[in-house]
C-alpha cells in the first residue's frame, strides 16, 4: 500500500451543540485523486476547513507526511503544501491576473514594497506550470469562470503544493471546461500532487477519481476504490435510501394539445421552434449553453417575450408578453437560477410557498384569511416534504434541494396547466433530485403538461416521454425517450 500523504483519524467537531463531525476518517496517498462526496450538511466542508487549518478538531488527529499536525493555522497549512481552492476561487476581480497570481507569494515573503517587474515574473512562472495562456494584464473580472479557476489553480501551485483540495470545482463549468479541468488534474497527478476533489456528481466521481469517501450526517459511510462503486451503491451511500430506477411512462395523455408552439422565434437566440405538449406528457428540451434552451423557457413564461411565432393554449392563440400573462394562462416557470429568480431568500418559507396564490387566501376586504392561509401552508409543507423545523424560518436556511421544493410548491399551489422547469435539479442533492422527479411524474399523471429544459441528459432521458434537441437556436432532432441514448443526443447537440 502506498504511503499516505494525509491521514485524518477519528475527527470530532461540534459547533454550538451541533455535532458536525462524528469521528470521521480520511486517507489520501501521494499522487492520488480522491473524491469526497456527500449531501449538503454532511460535514465535508468542515473536514476541509480542519485540514486547511481554519478550524481545530475537538478530538482526533491529522497526519501529514507521517507527522501528526498539532494546532495549525491556515498559513501553516499552506507552508506544508496544503492548498484549498474554494468555490469562489478567492480571486480579486478588480485586480489584474498577474497581481492575483503573485500576491500570495509576495505576501508570504513579507514584502512591503511592490516591484511590478517581479510580480510579472512570478505570474509568468505560475502560468507556465499548467500552460495557461492568458493576458497577464487583464482584469480578472473580465475572465470566464473557467479561466478564473485556472488562475486559482496556477496560484495554488506556486507554493509547492502537495495536496490540492478543490471544493465543487465543476459547478460553474461547461462540459468542455470540465474536460479541460480533468486534464489538468491528471497533469498534477503526474507531478506527484494529490487532489482531494469535493463533488456530489456521480459521473465525475467515476471519471476522474481513483478512491472515494462518502460522508452522511457527519459520519463516514464508505471509503474505497472507485472501481468497486456503481450508481446504485453511490446513491445508497449518499442518501441511505434505495431508489428504484423508474423511467417515466405517461399514463393518460390528453387527446387535444394542451400547449402548442408554432414557429416561435426570439431574435438572436432561437428561431422557428415548434412542438406540441399534451396533458399528462413530460417533454424534455436539451442543448448546449448557447442552443437557446434557456431563452425558450423565458419566452414561454413571458420574461423574454418571443419576437414572432404563436403560442396556443388548448387550441386558442394567447399572447404572453410578461409573466402576469403567463400566470393568468396557467403557465408556471421554475427558473434556472432559483436563488435569485425563484425565491425570496431572506423571507420565510411560508411566505414563499403561498406567494403566487396569495389572491386566493384573502377575505373580501383584501386582508389575509388567517385560517385558510395556515391550512394551505401546512398542506404545502407536508405534501412537498420540505425539511424544516419551522416554516417561519428564512428560505436561505434550507438546502438546495429543499429550496427547489419550495419553488415547486409555490407553483403547484396555483393549479397550473403547464409547468416549465429550467435546470430543475442543478445543485440539488441526489435524494431531493429523486423526490423532485417523483413529484413531476405525479403531476403529469394528474393531468399537467410538463416541459423539462436541462442539459443533464440522464435526467431528460429518464423523466421525459419525448426529447427535443436544440442546436444554435433550432430544433435539430426530436425522438421518443425510450429509443434515446446519451451518445446519440450528444451527437445531435454538438
Amino acid at each position, binding site marked *: 500500500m502506498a504511503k499516505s500523504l494525509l491521514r485524518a483519524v477519528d475527527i470530532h467537531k461540534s459547533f454550538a451543540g451541533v455535532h458536525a463531525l462524528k469521528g470521521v476518517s480520511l486517507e489520501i496517498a501521494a499522487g492520488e485523486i480522491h473524491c469526497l462526496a456527500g449531501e449538503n450538511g454532511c460535514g465535508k466542508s468542515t473536514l476541509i476547513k480542519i485540514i486547511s487549518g481554519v478550524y481545530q478538531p475537538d478530538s482526533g488527529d491529522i497526519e501529514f507526511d507521517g507527522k501528526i499536525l498539532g494546532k495549525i493555522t491556515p498559513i501553516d497549512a499552506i507552508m506544508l503544501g496544503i492548498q484549498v481552492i474554494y468555490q469562489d476561487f478567492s480571486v480579486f476581480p478588480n*485586480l489584474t491576473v498577474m497581481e492575483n497570481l503573485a500576491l500570495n507569494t509576495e505576501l508570504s515573503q513579507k514584502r512591503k*514594497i511592490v516591484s511590478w517587474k517581479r510580480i510579472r515574473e512570478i505570474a509568468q512562472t505560475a502560468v507556465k506550470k499548467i500552460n495557461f495562456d492568458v493576458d497577464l494584464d487583464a482584469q480578472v473580472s473580465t475572465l470566464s469562470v473557467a479561466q478564473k479557476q485556472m488562475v486559482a489553480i496556477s496560484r495554488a501551485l506556486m507554493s509547492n503544493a502537495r495536496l490540492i483540495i478543490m471544493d465543487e470545482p465543476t459547478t460553474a463549468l461547461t462540459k468542455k471546461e470540465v474536460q479541460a479541468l480533468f486534464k489538468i488534474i491528471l497533469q498534477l497527478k503526474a507531478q506527484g500532487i494529490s487532489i482531494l476533489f469535493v463533488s456530489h456528481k456521480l459521473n465525475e466521481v467515476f471519471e476522474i477519481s481513483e478512491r472515494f469517501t462518502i460522508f452522511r450526517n457527519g459520519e463516514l459511510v464508505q471509503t474505497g476504490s472507485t472501481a468497486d462503486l456503481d450508481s446504485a451503491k453511490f446513491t445508497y451511500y449518499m442518501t441511505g435510501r434505495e431508489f428504484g430506477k423508474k423511467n417515466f411512462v405517461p399514463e393518460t395523455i390528453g387527446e387535444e394539445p394542451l400547449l402548442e408552439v408554432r414557429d416561435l422565434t426570439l431574435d438572436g437566440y432561437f428561431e422557428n421552434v415548434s412542438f406540441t405538449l399534451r396533458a399528462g406528457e413530460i417533454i424534455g428540451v436539451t442543448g448546449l449553453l448557447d442552443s437557446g434552451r434557456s431563452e425558450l423557457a423565458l419566452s414561454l413564461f413571458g420574461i423574454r417575450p418571443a419576437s414572432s411565432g404563436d403560442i396556443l393554449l388548448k387550441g386558442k392563440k394567447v399572447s404572453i408578453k410578461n409573466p402576469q400573462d403567463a400566470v393568468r394562462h396557467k403557465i408556471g416557470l421554475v427558473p434556472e437560477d432559483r436563488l435569485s429568480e425563484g425565491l425570496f431568500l431572506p423571507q420565510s418559507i411560508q411566505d414563499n410557498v403561498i406567494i403566487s396564490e396569495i389572491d386566493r387566501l384573502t377575505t373580501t376586504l383584501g386582508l389575509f384569511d388567517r385560517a385558510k392561509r395556515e391550512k394551505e401552508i401546512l398542506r404545502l409543507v407536508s405534501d412537498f416534504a420540505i425539511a424544516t423545523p419551522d416554516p417561519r424560518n428564512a428560505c436561505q436556511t434550507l438546502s438546495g434541494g429543499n429550496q427547489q421544493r419550495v419553488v415547486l410548491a409555490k407553483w403547484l399551489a396555483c393549479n397550473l396547466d403547464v409547468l416549465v422547469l429550467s435546470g430543475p435539479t442543478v445543485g440539488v442533492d441526489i435524494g431531493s433530485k429523486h423526490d423532485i422527479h417523483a413529484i413531476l411524474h405525479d403531476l403529469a399523471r394528474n393531468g399537467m403538461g410538463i416541459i423539462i429544459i436541462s442539459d443533464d441528459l440522464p435526467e431528460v432521458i429518464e423523466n421525459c416521454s419525448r426529447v427535443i434537441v436544440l442546436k444554435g437556436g433550432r430544433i435539430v432532432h426530436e425522438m421518443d425517450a425510450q429509443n434515446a441514448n446519451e451518445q446519440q443526443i450528444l451527437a445531435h447537440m454538438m
Partner: protein
Amino acid sequence: MRRNEPYIFLVVLALCVLIEIRSGQFFTANNLTDIASAMIVPGLFAVGAFMVIVSGGIDVSFPALASLTSYATTKYLLDTGYTGGIWLPIVISLALGALLGAFNGIFIGYFSLPALIVTLGTSSVFKGVMQGALNSVQLAVIPPGMREFGTSSLFVATNSISGLTSRMPVAFLALLIVNGLAFLMLRYSYFGRGIYAIGGNETSAVRAGFNTKRGKFFLYVIVGMIASLAGLIRTCMMQQNHPTNMLGMEMNIIAGVVLGGTAIKGGAGSLSGAALGTLLIVIVENSMILLGIPTIWKSVFTGALIIIGTGVSAFQVLRANRITKNRIAWKEMSKA
C-alpha cells in the same frame, strides 16, 4: 470595469471651454489660479475619501474631524500665545487627526463594523465635542504663524485684461505632496495594494495573507491625518477659524470621487480620476458667476451634475459588463 478618466477629462475640458466662450474669463491666469486655490482643501479631502471608498468603505466624518482638529489646534495655540512658524501647528494637527482617525479605525478595522454607520456616529461625536465640550466659537484671530502661512504665496497671477490679481497659496504644495505620496503608496506598497484587495474581495484578502484589520485601521488613521491637515489649511487660508464652515462638504467630495470613476462598492478607481471628479465639482461651484448664473443656483447645478455624472458612469459600467459577458459567451461558442 471601464476606465473613466478620459471621459471625465473631456467633460472638464468641455465645461472650461463653455465658460470661456460665455465669459472670456476662464482661461485667464488669475482665474486658473483661483480654481487651483479653491481645489486645495477639497482636493485633500478627496484623497482620503478616495482611499476609503476603494477599500470598500465610506467615510462621512472627515469634515467634522477636520473642524474639530483645526478648532482645537487654533484655540490651543492662541491660548498659549504661540508665535512660531507653521510647523508646530502642522504637527499638532496631524497628531490630533491620527488620534481621531484611529477612533474610526478601531471600530471599522478591528470590530468590523460598517464604515458608513461608524462614521455617521463619529461625525456627530466630533461635532459634539467641538461645539459642546470645547464650546467652539468663531475665532477671528489666528496665531501669526498660521496667518503668515495662509497669506504667503508661491506666485501672484495677474489678469492682463482686468488687472485682477490672484495668489497661489503655498498650501498648494501640500496638495501636490499628499497626492504624490498617496499615489506612490497605492501603487508601490503592499499597504496600498492591500486597500485595493480589501475593496475587491475582503475574504480573499484575508486568505491571501493581508492583515486586513490592521490595514483598515491604519487607513483611517492616515485619512484622519489628511483631513486634519486640510482643516488647518482652510483656517490659514480663511485667516480665521469658523467651526462649522466645512461641515456638509462630505457629500460633494464623495460625489466628486465617484464622478471620477471610483466604484462606490470599492476595489476600483484611480487617484487621478478622483482628482478630476473633484476638479469638476470645484469648477462648477466656483465658475457659475462667469456663466452669469447667480450663485444661489450653485447647488442645483452641482446636484444635476452629480446625477448626470453618476448616471452616465453607471450606464457605462452596465454596458461594459454586458459587452464582457457577450464576449465571453462568443468566445465559448466559437470554441465549441
